[in-house]
């Protein structure tokens, strides 16, 4: 192979065709609240860990929908389960269990 000093840049595009429906349904069966997010961002705004590192439950849910669960796991690694997000969620999403469930289901190797 020839090195030209430049090469293909990985695409930043979300490909919804890569969405893993089976895993998502597994997640939705243990925590149906994952479907309820309307991306308001309240969880991100109050996040204790978010004060110090980039993290967002809203974005994690979004990433799973967008077929990028790795990004979600990375984001939720800093979560301390303090529950502030559960308190502020206008849709009453059971955020802590959702976070644990995402970790359990998508963290499986």
């Amino acid at each position, binding site marked *: 192979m020839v090195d030209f000093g430049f090469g293909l840049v990985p695409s930043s595009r979300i490909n919804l065709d890569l969405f893993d429906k089976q895993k998502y349904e597994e997640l939705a069966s243990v925590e149906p609240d994952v479907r309820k997010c309307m991306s308001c961002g309240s969880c991100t705004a109050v996040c204790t860990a978010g004060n*110090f590192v980039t993290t967002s439950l809203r974005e994690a849910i979004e990433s799973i929908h967008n077929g990028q669960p790795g990004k979600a796991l990375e984001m939720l690694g800093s979560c301390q389960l303090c*529950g502030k997000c559960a308190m502020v969620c206008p849709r009453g999403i059971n955020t802590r*269990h959702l976070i644990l469930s995402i970790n359990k289901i998508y963290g499986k190797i």
Partner: protein
Amino acid sequence: MIPMSFILAAQAAPEVIDRIPSGYNHFVIPFCVGIVFFLIWITVGCIRILLNIPHSDRLRFWKSLVSPVTIYKNLRDLFCDCLFHVKIWKRKPLLGYMHSAIAFGWFMLILLGHIEVALFVPKRLGISRSALFYPIFYRFFVWMNPGHTTLRGWVFFFLMDFFLLYVLSGIALAVFKRFRSLALGMKHTTKPSLADRVALYSLWLIFPMRLLAESFTADLSGGSFLTIPVNHLWHLIFGDKLWIMPSWWCYSICLGLFFAVMPFSRYMHILTEVLWILLRNAGIKPNHPRKGVAEAEIYACSSCGLCLDACPMNVQKKNLKYSSVYFIRFLRRHNERKINDIADKCLMCDKCHALCPVGVDAPALRRAQRATVNESIAYDYSYLGSAVPVHTATEGNAPEVMYFAGCMSHLTPRIIKSVEKVFNAAGVSYVFADEGGGICCGRPLMLAGRNDAAAKTIAANKKMIEESGCRTLVLSCPICFKIFKEEYGLKGVNVVHYTQYFNELIASGRLKPSMGRERLVYHDPCELGRGCNVYYEPRAALSQLATLVKASKEYDESLCCGGSLGSLTLDTRDRAKISETAVSSLMVNNPDKIVTACPLCLKTFSESVANSTHQVSPVRVVDFAEAISESIGN
């Protein structure tokens, strides 16, 4: 205590003669099979449990058995918990009577039976001589020497009949309870499993059978106020043809059946409880939801169902299945899916633990269960070091107290404002540890069974506190309070909840609240009351500024607000139902305000009251600090 003179008299003239010289009859076989199976089972079980306990804990256990303090504690607990069921007595006297009648009565029947054998036919207690069954069927094997009955014999006859009647009264209540539980003060009862049913019905039958058998033989082997009249009654009905053998067979079968199914039924608790009390008093904590101590604990559960009424989730019938009794039942059955479901649903309010007659700590088992699933979840807390604020004080000029608000208090700024106002009014020099937002205390992680991760946040916070040089740490959140007190191991730092601290400020005169005309009701937050045993201080402080009225459930009976972080899966609607119930419990005496001392309760109650469609003018929900700060003016 048996007077010496009676013993001597016995030796002089035989009062009791072996009716059956071999000391054996085929009818004892069912009983023997049952009891042998049971004894093997329980011996193997005990050995297994002890083997599964970590070595250090096992050492601790042996030591505790010889330490005078634990010996006393063990004896007291065994008597109070196993035989007399004092805890049930306290809550529901009739239910207490029922349990103690069966437990204590039966215990006494067995004890007295053996004493009787020891006194009258001591040879039958030898190992080779049918010691296994002879004391049980004593009344079958002996013949009373008529005219030689001594006072001693009469006393035994009386006592045996008395305790039999005592047990029978308990059984009668139990049967009645099965059909009309509410009369005995239980709204909900456990659904018995098949083994439970078999054991239950055989238990119910044992004592009537015993009465039948003993009353049939009462004219041969003697009896007292119960068996003799019944014997006469049988003679009146059946003439001289009494069904002696069938009745003893039945009695034996019932006993045998009961012991055979006991290991698979809730009645296993009768003996496991002893082991559990010993282990508990030795201070050994479970580190696995099913192995070691936990095994003793789950088999010590009597499935009495008191936790059903205690559980705040019982406001909805569908959630009854998440009560501790079922959790333990599924732990016994190794039903992994259901175990996890129940473990995750619990609010961890600890009420079932507080009220459990045998002190089974189901919430701790749930945490252990959660740990089996959640402990392995990956995390990255590398940011903690830089996240924790630094409050370094030079020697000698450290502020009086450090105030740690915690995550939740940041969502209820009125608590923080009030706490600061009180500090300022009392002239307390303080440093606000997490003013710009700190990290979590770690308790929510522990509640989710993630102890490793919790240890990381604990270490980070601990470092901050120790470096600050403050000697007193004041917390406004009971969730934080519990973990700071129990897990942080802060040496030389006085960890207090603000209810305690403010009460002290009032007591020492640094804070002078003015008495108002309002009527307040105080809600005991789970983590503060049952969790840390703080009941007195908040009430003492509040009574300095208003009239305290009672809630329908208070102190360790207090109801969870429904907002608890303990539950991982309970959804908002179910939580709202719990909140409603808790609010109505607080509102029974129509207070002007509900006072709580936990940000989570505050938020939950505030929302519940605001969303309530029933109340015309919603009651105000205030925080303890708010109530204090309002009473000290501006």
